[in-house]
């Protein structure tokens, strides 16, 4: 027998098996309806789980993206400061993050597709459950037990097939979500352990430290330049000429200040 025939047969047999246990047709209707309501809850929970998973992956993607942006900035800063070695290091780390990000993007798209499929399945089931409830009440009110048997069979087999399908879809989504949660957890752990931190956005990561030092070095150089210009602009030759004496002047000045300071209380006492 072909694949499709066997799948169809076994699927239908399984979907209907639970319902065959009922002896009273009305009991079958109520039992089936209870199962339908449970299945609706289950599929809605499934949609929520997938959505949670998708949001988690989204957060991780944002974090990695920010880290990449930062490494990009650092590379530019390093290159601007003539540190090609540092820029290369930053870009190497940036490209290492790219594969992680690509992986997360694939996961994200897959979860998004699952979410859409399950949402659609949930809506289909919802519509069928409502239709079933209407039929159930009609059958119960109008027909004798013997007539009801056939009608119930028709109504129940259609919806139990749907429930089997939805149940499988929820199961698949849950399995996949569990796998992705495990991978997302692994990335979170990686981030927490510092393995990714070294590469990335710590306020004091090594690239930033070097850039800060570079910046600090530049600041000192700039300040020196400025001071030289200031002093040189007023009287460059004098300073050069008086350089040895400058220290003497300073100490004299200090001595003068000290004596002035010492004089002040005296002045105060005198007055």
């Amino acid at each position, binding site marked *: 027998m*072909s*694949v*499709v*025939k*066997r*799948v*169809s047969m*076994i*699927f*239908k047999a*399984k*979907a209907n*098996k*639970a319902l065959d246990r009922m002896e009273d047709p009305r009991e079958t209707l109520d039992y089936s309806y209870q199962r339908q309501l449970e299945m609706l809850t289950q599929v809605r929970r499934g949609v929520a789980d997938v959505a949670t998973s998708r949001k988690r992956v989204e957060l991780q993607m944002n974090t990695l993206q920010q880290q990449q942006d930062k490494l990009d900035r650092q590379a530019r800063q390093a290159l601007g400061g003539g540190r090609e070695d540092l820029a290369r290091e930053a870009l190497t780390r940036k490209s290492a993050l790219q594969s992680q990000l690509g992986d997360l993007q694939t996961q994200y798209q897959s979860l998004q597709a699952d979410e859409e*499929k399950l949402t*659609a*399945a949930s*809506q*289909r089931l*919802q*519509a*069928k459950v*409502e*239709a*079933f409830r209407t*039929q159930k009440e009609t059958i119960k009110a109008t027909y004798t037990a013997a007539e009801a048997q056939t009608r119930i069979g*028709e*109504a129940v*087999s*259609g*919806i139990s*097939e749907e*429930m*089997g*399908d939805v*149940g*499988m*879809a929820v*199961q*698949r989504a849950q399995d996949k979500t569990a796998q992705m949660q495990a991978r997302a957890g692994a990335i979170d752990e990686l981030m927490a352990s510092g393995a990714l931190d070294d590469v990335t956005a710590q306020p004091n990561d090594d690239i930033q430290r070097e850039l800060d030092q570079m910046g600090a070095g530049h600041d000192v150089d700039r300040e020196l330049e400025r001071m030289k210009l200031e002093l040189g602009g007023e009287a460059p030759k004098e300073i050069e000429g008086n350089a040895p004496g400058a220290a003497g002047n300073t100490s004299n000045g200090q001595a003068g200040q000290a004596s002035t300071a010492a004089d002040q209380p005296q002045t105060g006492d005198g007055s």
Partner: protein
Amino acid sequence: MIVRILGEGQLTVDDTVSTELNELDAKLQAALNAGDEKAFRVTLEGLLARVRAAGTPIPADSLEASDVILPYSEASMDDVRALLTDDGLIPG
């Protein structure tokens, strides 16, 4: 006839297409027997695509049972083998 694609819902498909679907089904069986995952993938995708193209989705509130049930599109050979066993993928 009414065809269900697992995970996607039910469609009404004209009976004239059934010969074509049977051929694809036989190819699917051959790929499964040969353990040829690639051929299996291509054939399953082809089968589902043909049904989607030829079929009209039935209203969501219809309670009709399907004549034929097809595996979901991402099903692997192992998934389908599991579908064919009693303690397989189908809950209940």
